[in-house]
């Protein structure tokens, strides 16, 4: 497979996953806000600020908007072309990459992605958004899920597909770690207690942002605790958005590409990924909390960046050093 094609598959998939994560975070945040009786300006700010912090977009937001409001944040994360991480930008970049590899991906994949792009740029999308943001984000997530389904059902699961997996799981691991970190940025309102009503509601929102609510409740016997949620989203071995699951899938895809056995490594990306994977396999939630959840997530994000750099160097830009 051409190095440029591998690169485009990887990014195409990352951008699609990013668009999905953003849509879901916004959806959950709107619903979360509706759970609170106090809709005063302070509360509103408190709800939307962490979104920007999580997405590391606060500076860019301040350049465009004067004050924080729900509408401004939603518009910024959804339609803002000047925000390279907005949903619209992500889908646009995904499409650019898909255009580069149109002969590699299936026509069905391309058309699904292209329809989504055309829809997001249409006035119909804006009015749907105004009518009901929640429905808008749901249907967006549906379209993105369709893309995943079409990809798995219509494309040969060969090298190109493996690079799509690599992009998807790397981005998903990153986004799960960020969503968990939202909790770090949200301050509990004055007088609220850890483990109290508001605290629990917030943890439930974190779960819902990862589509993990139902899966979590099945094993938690109705108990929502910070430890329980963090353990589930970091260490569960078969929930498809847990950090451990994502890193394991990433590791598998990397080894499928190189053909190297999973107990070994044949390049730097596999070595770094294998270390992170075994780390997640052999740690427990007590260790994570004793390091500090925020510190742990921060480190994990840095390690994901290192893996990304290493794999791009190994497969995509190996000749550019000269």
């Amino acid at each position, binding site marked *: *497979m*051409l*190095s*440029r*094609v*591998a690169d485009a598959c990887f990014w195409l998939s990352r951008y699609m996953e990013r668009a999905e994560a953003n849509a879901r975070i916004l959806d959950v945040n709107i619903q979360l806000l509706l759970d609170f009786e106090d809709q005063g300006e302070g509360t509103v700010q408190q709800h939307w600020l962490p979104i920007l912090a999580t997405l590391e977009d606060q500076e860019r937001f301040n350049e465009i908007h004067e004050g924080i409001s729900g509408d401004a944040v939603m518009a910024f994360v959804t339609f803002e072309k000047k925000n390279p991480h907005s949903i619209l930008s992500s889908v646009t970049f995904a499409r*650019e990459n898909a*255009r*580069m590899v*149109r*002969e590699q991906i299936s*026509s069905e994949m*391309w*058309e699904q992605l*292209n*329809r989504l792009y*055309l829809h997001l740029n249409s006035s119909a999308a804006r009015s749907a958004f105004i009518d009901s943001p929640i429905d808008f984000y749901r249907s967006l997530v549906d379209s993105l899920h369709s893309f995943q389904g079409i990809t798995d059902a219509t494309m040969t699961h060969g*090298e190109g597909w493996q690079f799509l997996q690599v992009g998807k799981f790397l981005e998903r691991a990153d986004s799960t770690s960020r969503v968990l970190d939202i909790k770090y940025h949200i301050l509990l309102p004055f007088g609220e207690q850890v483990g109290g009503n508001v605290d629990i509601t917030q943890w439930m929102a974190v779960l819902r942002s990862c589509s993990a609510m139902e899966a979590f409740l099945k094993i938690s016997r109705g108990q929502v605790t910070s430890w329980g949620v963090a353990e589930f989203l970091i260490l569960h071995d078969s929930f498809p958005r847990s950090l451990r699951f994502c890193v394991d899938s990433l590791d598998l895809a990397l080894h499928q*590409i190189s053909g190297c056995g999973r107990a070994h490594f044949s390049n730097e990306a596999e070595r770094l990924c294998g270390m992170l994977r075994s780390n997640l396999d052999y740690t427990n939630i007590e260790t994570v909390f004793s390091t500090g959840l925020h510190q742990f997530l921060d480190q994990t994000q840095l390690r994901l960046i290192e893996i990304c750099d290493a794999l791009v160097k190994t*497969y*995509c830009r*190996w*000749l550019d050093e000269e």
Partner: protein
Amino acid sequence: MQGIFQQYDTGPFFDEMFGSDGQVRPHYVQLLQKFEELDSGEFDRKRVLAEKSYLNQGITFTVYSGDEGTERIMPFDLIPRIIPGDEWACIERGLTQRLLALNLFLRDIYHEQKILTDGIIPAELIRSARHFRPELVGVDIPHDIYIHICGTDLIRGADGRYLVLEDNGRCPSGVSYLLENRQAMKRVFPQLFNRYAVRPVGRYPQELLASLRHVAPHGNPDPTVVVLSPGIYNSAYFEHSFLARAMGIEIVVGHDLVIENSRVFMKTTKGLKKVDVIYRRIDDDFLDPKVFRKDSVLGVPGIVGAYRAGNVTLANALGTGVADDKAVYYYVPAMIKYYLGEEPVLPNVETYLSAVEDDRKFILAHLPELVVKAANESGGYGMMIGPHASKAEIAKFRDAINADPRGYIAQPVVQLSRSPCFVDGRVEGRHIDLRPYILSGEKTTIIPGGLTRVAMRKGSLVVNSSQGGGSKDTWVLDEREGAC
């Protein structure tokens, strides 16, 4: 006539669908019956349906205004152009003959140049052709095929006779539209295909791949074939990726390729992989900054060296542009006689070459009636249509011809045939041409029909998509072929 054809007027032109007496031509009877059942609202809904499928598939070109690019589709007209089987057999024979002669000509001028020493074509005319590459004289290429893919533009004059307007032996584009137009028609009017036996066009990509594999260097039976594109910002990128996908081969851009030991390799995730045949959609000028334009960032430095060494085949070959030269076009009928000893089946449009003294006198005396074309331009550029030109424009071309007689040809204005087209809720006549695609491989293959291009603006004779042209599906009927 009823429905959308009510008030249809053929005007003083050759109309593809109706005779001069207003009677529908026999091969259009069924079509007319079907279309008369539709009202303009229904027809418009079908049109929107077709356009939507082009948009969803991304069959678009980008129009830039300010810093925002908008993607537009090429206008598609739903009324197909129908060519009877015997008419097509004749065209096919003429095109095969023509491409055979052009390939023999290119072989000749890049080797012995007999046609020049025998005085059929003035040597000076070839030497001064902008796209002639003297540095390639003596280079052998597989099977002596220079033009592997040819797009020869045909028009019909007032008497309906097919004439050759020009040959495109460099990188003819548009074949993807032809294939997609057929898909769109099948989607929108499936019933019509039950009424007609339309010859299928879908095999083109496989035929193209077979032609490309045939010319692999050193007779390699299992060559690696790729499409070389300038990249996603090129207006024909859709076509490049479409063809790569339909052939099941890789599409590459310049920086995917490297040259080592006069061989071409592509950079893959598993290291370098040798490339044998390149279907290149980049003009000669931009292909190799070491040899041609130094400022090209699209090309591959050193690729011409690999080509000269015989380690890679380029399709089309380097230097074919000389056959597109409009002054050389003037001599194609003579070429056919010289190389094949045959009379041309398809005549040229009556042409005057300003390099020939008598012709020049005629041209200068009749400028307001003639179409003048710069010999080295294509795509509708560098052209003056006498009857529509201002005095100043005519004076400008007069000076230009006197200054550079080699640089121009002139032709009488041919009123291209018209075909009914659906415009603003009703059917009106629009001028059309036909670009068939001819493949030269183990044998010569021509996709039945070709791309019918439509000058969508009322009265316009310019069909080029860069200047607002559209297209329509072209049907060759599968019937017993009469004598040609």
